[in-house]
């Protein structure tokens, strides 16, 4: 079980727990504002963009090549950006704090 915290652009802090699937799926299931996941989680739409805390990057890992390219669609993307459909939930990411991109 991993605890994942989302901070939305309207400054809500939402703490959720999950043990499988992707971070995007968990966020959509609980209606986290700003994470849409329009393509259903296949890295095609870039509507599930989150910023990872620098100290959590080791847990989540960096974005893959296609993910990095897709993130270019968003001018707010930075070195700590991930598409949350590409972050798999496991114990390894327990405790991460993700800021939902504007």
């Amino acid at each position: 079980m991993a605890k994942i915290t989302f901070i939305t652009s309207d400054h809500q802090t939402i703490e959720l727990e999950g043990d499988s699937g992707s971070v995007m799926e968990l966020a959509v299931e609980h209606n986290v504002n700003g994470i849409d996941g329009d393509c259903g989680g296949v890295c095609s739409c870039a509507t599930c963009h989150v910023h990872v805390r620098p100290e959590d990057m080791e847990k989540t890992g960096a974005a893959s090549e296609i993910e990095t390219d897709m993130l270019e669609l968003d001018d707010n993307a930075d070195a700590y950006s991930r598409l949350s459909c590409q972050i798999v939930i496991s114990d390894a990411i327990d405790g991460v704090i993700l800021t939902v991109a504007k």
Partner: protein
Amino acid sequence: MTDTVCVIIGASHAGVNCAFALRKEGWQGQIILYDADPELPYHRPPLSKTYLTNTEGAQKNLLKSEESYERSEIQLNLGIEVTSIDSGERKIALSDGKVQAYDKLILATGARPLIPPITGLDNAKNIFPLRTMADVEGIRKALGESPKKNVVIIGGGYIGLEIAASLNKLGATVTVLEREERILARVTVSEMSEFFHSLHQKKGVDILTKKNVTAVETNTGHTIICDDGSAYFADIIIIGVGIRVNTEIAEKAGLVTENGIKVDAMAKTSNEDIYAIGDCTFHHNPHYDRFVRLESVQNAVDQAKVAAAAICGKEVIYDSIPWFWSDQYDVKLQIVGLSEGHDNSIIRKEEKEQPCFSIWYFSGDRLLSVDAINSAKAFVLGTKFIKTGQLINKSNLADTSVELKPAHLMI
């Protein structure tokens, strides 16, 4: 909560996104969604891809959790068909005999699979289109019960090819029969058709073109007969030859329809209180300055948001650049823009182990569209250049020794 009512007909990508967008925009009244499909609204694109090959996907495949509708006070009425609209009295009639009044009505009626007039198709067993979760369940069950797993897919468009890839993965022997001279003939250039043709052949899917199916004979299995005299055997037949737009109730209500329900830049129909969104609409695209009808998640979601904002009194216009995707085997196709009307194109082939190339479609020097195979970079750059209208240095684009970067492509 006020007592105004917004009714949405159709609870797929467009209808569901519109309901949630209405709340976000501040709609205070009731929101009532209807759909004939009894399933909790789900993502459609995965149906022919991961959902077909993965049996544990139902919960993961939902557009929104059941709880989300309750929290946003969106009433979901599933398994109920809307049979007619009385636009004068502002009410709709339902298949369960009831009547529902509305202040604002949104048509998100989508489309249904086209079943071609092939002799013997009507009452034969194990023949499926693929548009709904029930279709997928039907295909899976039939495949499980079929000892030979011989499948014929009629139609070599995106849906047919995605199903071919998925069923191939599930161990079926798949033959695709395409009526035109090449697969994907209606939607892409011959280079792309050739790429997908050889991809499927390599994986063991038999793709046959210029095959016009005229009859299906059913005994223990099906014999599919083409007009050139050839015949193919299958336990299961899948039909993927296109769609018919669900415009009937709109037409009967007197709304203007052409190639779909005609809407303005705010997604409003010819009736002041009725909007239409998604696959069922015929709308103007300002980037291409023409009316189009699009079958895509992007169009459904973006138009839904525009309609919701307009209904809540915002000044908005629908001006999205269309985009699409298709996943087959480990190949990802991403398309941005509309290539129709192009008069020249450039193919850029990266030197990589995996296939990685993009086709850039121009009208003169103006970029219209990009088809990208395993190249999100090309897709993203194409999106940016179409959006800004910035001209492209075509010789750099064609030269793979020049890295694909905005600065290298600008003139």
